[in-house]
Structure formats: C-alpha cells, structure tokens
C-alpha cells in the first residue's frame, strides 16, 4: 500500500476514500473562525480531538432524558443510566475486540496507567493471589525513552515506592526504538514492560507484539499505552499480545473525563484495587472490607455514565467511517506532510521520514525560530498546533532538541490544510528573518 494511494484494499475489496467534506460537516467547531477571522485549521488532535455532532448529541440526550447515578437506586432513571453505562462498556469492548468484563473505565489514559502501577505496589499488602504483581529490590521495570510522561513517571514512582529498578530502551537517531540490547534488557528480573503503541512526538510505531513475546517468555507483564494508536487505527487486543492497554476517549472523538484500561481477565481478577470507596466493595465492616470482582473493583465512585455514552457514540462514529479507511486517509496526509514540511530548507522533521510503521504526528524544528514562535505565527494564520516537549521530555533530549512544533492529523484534516501548514512555516521563517 502506498501512502498516497487514493484507495486501499481490504480483504481484496477496494475501499473508497474517506469523504472529508461529509466528515467535516459533522464537526460544528470546524466551522468557526479564529484569530483574524481565519477559518480554523485544527492540527492538534494528538492533544485532543474535536467531537462530532453525534457524540455531542449522545451526551446531551443522556443528560436530557436519562441522567441518574449508575449502579445505585432502583428507580427508572437509575436503571436506564446503568444500562447506558454498561451498554457503553460492551460497545468499547467490541471496538478493541475485548470481553466487556475486561474493560475498566477510568478518568483518563493517565489514570489507567497509574491504576496498574499502584495496583502493583498495593500488591505488597494484598493476598497471595496478587503475588505476580509484587515487585521489590532486584526486580526491574522496563520502559522506553520514547514514552509520554504518563507511561514513564508512574513507573519511576513505582520503583521509588518498591525499590525496583527502572530500565529503558533507548531510541535511534531516526526516533525508532533501539532494540539492539533487547535480550539484555528483557531478562528474568524484568517484571513489567511498559511501551507506547505509537509515539505522540514522532509517530513511530514500535513492534509491540514482538516486545510482548520476548517479555512473556520471561514472565513479565506488558502494558501498552494506546492513547495515540486506538484513535487512529484498528486495534485488536488479541493481536496486540499485551496484558494491559490504556487509552483515552477525548483523543478519539469522545468526551474528556473518561479513559479505558483493558486488562486480561485472569490478571484483573488477581489484581488489587487502586482507588477505593463506594461501588467497588463487596462487604464493608468497620474492621475491613472485601471487594467486587473486576471491572467494578477498579471503578470506585459514581461512574462517568454520560462520558461513557459519549465514548460509545465515538466508537460508533469511527466504525461508521471504518478504521481502515480512516487510517488510509491519515497515512496520505502524513506522507504529504512529511514531503511538504521536510522539503522546507532549515526545517528538520523528527522521527521516521516515511509512513512505514509511523502514525500521523509530525514534529519539527525550524532553524533560528523557536517552536513557540513558530506556533504563534501559525496561530495567527488560524492553524492550531502544539509547541513544547509534548509531555515527552526525555525523547526530545534523546533526539537532541529542546522543544518542537507538532502537527497531528485526523480524519477531518485535508490536504489543503497540510499545504497551509507548510506555507505557515515559511511565513514564520520570513517573519523572524530565518529564511
């Protein structure tokens, strides 16, 4: 499949290209004007995506008609809310090929990753069933230099709490994971490997299934940060080969305030809770409490039903488009972006320069113009991008840059917008006298 192909073949049948115009009509915010009356060119979906009417309507309809506290009360609204919440769990499970009992709703992907990290230190005081989650001095937690802080700092903290040692895969100058010392890094002391499914900076897609195979051969658990993959391509947990997958709704057309942790059932059953309180208990006495089975064990407090409904609507929307079609569209935009931006003299794109095993995050530096200043000029043209280290400071350091400007593409972006980005970069160079 070539990146710029107009159609992709799926199971032999040609797939029609994504109808961007029809898609854009579903996103009210794309119709607004921004600074200077410019139409909005939103290239910051890697930070958060925009929401289609269908998602907004689903959430509004929930609040307008059904709203109550799920899993509490026996009145009609409570019943409807519980059905809506649990129905959303089924929908999300279907979206990633999982069993509904393996889907835990959290407040974010960040919280989902923390849930696993804290469950592991809580294992120290849990029963014998939690044995395999215990870590301590001599054990190793393996991460990568490519991680978003959300899949790095929780593991650093876990090591601090338990005395385990943090180790990491480095990155190549091209921004790929350096797997040359994998045999040494993944060893019998390795208790857990945490790796991103797609870099939020370079778009690089590490070979997660291979890493999982190596890790499992040594008995280590595998946690995958899917915040940048699940919104952009078809992810099937069976094929992924991992034990846990974290992602967030707001990056996949859903509402903010809800994330997902998928975990293998047998692991979730043995795993101690992280946040405790109402909803997650079996019996509470003054002397102590017992907990419900998963997923409830990990969902203390009144659940975010409206957000779950919105997320389910986002899954419907994405499946309606088709993840293969969406991915092909993004791949074409990325190829175009790589070509147009990397061709500008004085601009360096971080990460792989082809779309092979690479998603739609385009981070770059402009000689003589700081990323903040590039972003400011683009903003003046109505182009929204991210500037800074994008919560991946060690990766920036490894690639020898302090900060970057990042454009990220999604289903509603167009080739004209990619051209506008390249033009904007040239204007920034001109304004700051760098071209």
């Amino acid at each position, binding site marked *: 499949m070539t990146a710029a192909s107009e159609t992709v073949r799926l199971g032999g049948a040609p797939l029609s290209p994504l109808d961007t115009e029809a898609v854009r009509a579903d996103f009210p915010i794309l119709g607004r004007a921004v*600074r200077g009356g410019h139409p909005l060119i939103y290239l910051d979906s890697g930070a958060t995506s925009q929401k289609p009417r269908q998602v907004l309507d689903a959430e509004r309809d929930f609040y307008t008609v059904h709203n109550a506290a799920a899993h509490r009360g026996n009145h009609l609204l409570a019943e409807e809310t519980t059905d809506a919440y649990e129905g959303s769990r089924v929908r999300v499970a279907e979206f990633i090929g999982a069993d509904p009992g393996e889907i835990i709703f959290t407040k974010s992907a960040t919280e989902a990753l923390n849930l696993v990290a804290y469950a592991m230190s809580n294992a120290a005081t849990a029963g014998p069933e939690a044995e395999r989650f215990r870590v301590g001095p001599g054990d190793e937690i393996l991460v990568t230099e490519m991680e978003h802080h959300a899949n790095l700092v929780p593991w650093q903290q876990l090591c601090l709490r338990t005395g385990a040692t943090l180790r990491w895969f480095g990155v190549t100058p091209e921004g790929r994971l350096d797997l040359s010392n994998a045999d040494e890094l993944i060893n019998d002391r390795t208790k857990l490997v945490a790796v991103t499914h797609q870099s939020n900076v370079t778009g690089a897609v590490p070979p997660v299934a291979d890493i999982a195979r190596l890790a499992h051969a040594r008995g280590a658990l595998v946690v995958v940060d899917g915040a940048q993959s699940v919104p952009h391509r078809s992810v099937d947990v069976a094929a992924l080969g991992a034990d846990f997958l974290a992602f967030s709704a707001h990056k996949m057309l859903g509402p903010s305030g809800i994330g997902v942790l998928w975990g293998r059932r047998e692991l979730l059953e043995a795993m101690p809770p992280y946040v405790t309180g109402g909803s997650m208990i079996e019996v509470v006495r003054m002397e102590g409490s017992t907990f419900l089975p998963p997923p409830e064990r990990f969902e203390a407090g009144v659940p975010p039903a409206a957000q779950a409904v919105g997320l389910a609507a986002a899954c419907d929307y994405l499946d309606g488009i088709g993840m293969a079609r969406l991915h092909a569209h993004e791949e074409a935009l990325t190829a175009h972006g790589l070509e147009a931006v990397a061709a500008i003299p004085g601009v360096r794109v971080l990460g792989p320069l082809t779309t092979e095993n690479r998603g739609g995050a385009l981070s770059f530096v402009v000689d003589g113009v*700081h*990323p*903040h*200043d590039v972003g*400011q000029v683009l903003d003046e043209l109505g182009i929204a991008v991210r500037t800074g280290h994008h919560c991946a400071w060690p990766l920036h350091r490894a690639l020898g840059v*302090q900060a970057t400007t990042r454009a990220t593409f999604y289903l509603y972006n167009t080739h004209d917008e990619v051209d506008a980005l390249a033009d904007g970069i040239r204007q920034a160079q001109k*304004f700051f006298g760098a071209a």
Partner: protein
Amino acid sequence: MQLESLYQEIILDHYRHPHRKGLREPFDAEVHHVNPTCGDEVTLRVALKDAAGEPVVADVSYDALGCSISQASTSVLTDMVVGKTVAEAMDVSAEFLALMQSRGEGEPDEDVLGDAVAFEGVAKYPARIKCALLGWMAWKDATARALAEADPGAKDNS
C-alpha cells in the same frame, strides 16, 4: 496580522542582539529556572553591591534557551534593573508582573518600565506570559537569595 503588536520591533531587536548575555563572575547568587510546559530554561546570576548602605544591582548575567519572548524579556530585564537599587528594581519587576497579568487591559507606565512596555501585547496571549516572566522570576529569586546570603537575618523579616 496582529503579530507585529506581539512581536514589537524592540522585542525582535533584543532577541537578535541580547544585552548582557553570558554568565559572568563575580556573582552573589545563581538560579536555574525552567518553564515546564516547553522546557525553556534560564541560568541567571545576580551580583549586588553596596551603595551608601543600600543594595544595588551591580550585574545580571545569564545563559538561556528559549523563544524570542523569553530571550528578549530577559535582555530587557537586565537593562531595567542593572544600576538600580534592589528596592527600585523590585518596583519595576512588580510593575512588569502587573502588566503581564492585565490581560491586555493594563496601562503600562513607560517611566517605570522603559523598553519593557513593548511586552504589552504579550499580555493578550495567556500562553506566552510565562515566557515573558521566565527571566524576571529567575532574577527575583536570585536577588532574594543574594540578599539572604548577605544578611541571613533578612529572611526572617520578609
């Protein structure tokens, strides 16, 4: 484009030709400040001297990585505080902070702020205020440390 109101010529001049850049000896205190959202950083030194019993800013030297706003703002800062008594310089710093927090509604006092009035436009861009304040906050911190060093009792009075 509104860019010219943000990036006034004075700012671009200071960015291209920063004043007093580089770390110098002697100094009484050195601090390292970081803007955690973008990773911009400044290492800044303050040297004080005594003038008729009052502390005066003798030198401000710095090494910094950052955007045009943070670089220019640190350069302007040195112009505005070096040679002033610490008390006068702190007044300028307070005025600059007030300007940054005005959301563009402030009436900057050019008599107090000098070239720093050029940053008026920055106040309209909340995401950039931290850039403009990076060097100023570092200077305040370094000066407070230098004063505490000179007079260990001063800390208790502040």
